């Protein structure tokens, strides 16, 4: 459900950026794979919230960003696939609004290194980003 907040965030941010620069045609955002965001809800929220803003003609494209985890203790690098079972446990414990869906940067508290079990894990690509803003050159 916080897909709505993300759409809101993207609209506010790009509106600010695009002010005085012309008409925006397309926005590409990156969302972390670990949050399992519903991209349909996200684009639907965007399309609803953009009405009446300067982005009313813009489309949203969602890119899923994969995470790389690096254990600071043993040096193991791993991906979401390597810790699928751990993520699954969190999902089944919490249900739909599980913590990593809402706040993916909490992952070091919920995921441990599959080799040594350490929680001292660094993660990249874990926040929502605006990757690209494509302007309407015809206007």
């Amino acid at each position, binding site marked *: *459900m*916080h897909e*709505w*907040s*993300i759409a*809101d*965030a*993207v609209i*506010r*941010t*790009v509106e*600010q*950026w695009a002010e005085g620069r012309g008409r925006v045609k397309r926005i590409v*955002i990156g969302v972390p794979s670990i949050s399992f965001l519903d991209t349909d809800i996200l684009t639907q*929220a965007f399309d609803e919230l953009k009405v009446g803003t300067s982005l009313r003609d813009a489309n949203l494209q969602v890119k899923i960003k994969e995470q790389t985890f690096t254990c*600071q203790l043993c040096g193991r690098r791993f991906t979401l696939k390597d810790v699928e079972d751990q993520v699954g446990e969190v999902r089944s414990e*919490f249900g739909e*609004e599980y*913590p990593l869906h*809402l*706040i993916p*940067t*909490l*992952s*070091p*508290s919920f995921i441990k290194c599959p080799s040594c079990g350490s*929680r*001292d*894990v*660094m*993660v990249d690509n*874990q*926040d*929502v*980003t*605006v990757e690209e803003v494509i302007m309407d050159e015809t206007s």
Partner: protein
Amino acid sequence: MKPLRTLAAGKLKGKLAIAVMSSKGGVGKSVVSALLANVMSARVKTLLLDLDVHTMASAKLFGLEGRVHQVSKRGLEPFPFGDKLGVITLSGVVKDRWVLLPGANQALTMESLLAYSDMEGWDAVIFDLPPGLGDEVLVLGRVSDYLPLVVTSPSKVSVKVVEYLLKFLSETGKRPVLTVNMAYYQCQGQVVRPFGDGRALKELTERYGVPMVELPIDPELEEFVGRIQEYDGPVLEGVREITRMLER
């Protein structure tokens, strides 16, 4: 472009933001935050946002352990106490579980909590911060022009380190209010000051031109952990004084 930061800043725009801060831990920030939120909510819709993501004390003070926030289109719904007091805490996301994070994640987690909180219709937001000068102070500074309420205990160590915070805040052009928590207690009509007369603090506040409010020690307070919103003892009197100082 920082979408979550922009959203957090947008949501906080036009609201009264009060950051309850301290140099040391355990001086009463969370208690003061909770009581302040309660006192202020008598007049304006007040949201307490617990930014101490490791302690999440507000969940314990208000008896919210194990409860999770509903998430609506507008974000994390505050736990309501009546219709003018609300609480948002990470505890309501992680269900009262420990949180351990590398520094960068800590800042991003706080930013997310701010961005995803539903603040619509709330007039004032009180931030219960972790102790010291860490990421959280920077994160908050990026999204709001907060009013600092600095809490200290009267112990010499606290007083020495509180000067760091006052220096930092005055450098950033903020005008803090200082609260000396647990400054005294009443015993058979007598005021007892177990940590000394507080002269060093008085000097400090004069040097920095900072208004100061003293709060008493109240052993009864402990009985209100879990239902702090019902507390109506002598500490609350002092907290009312704080709201008058903040309004000035």
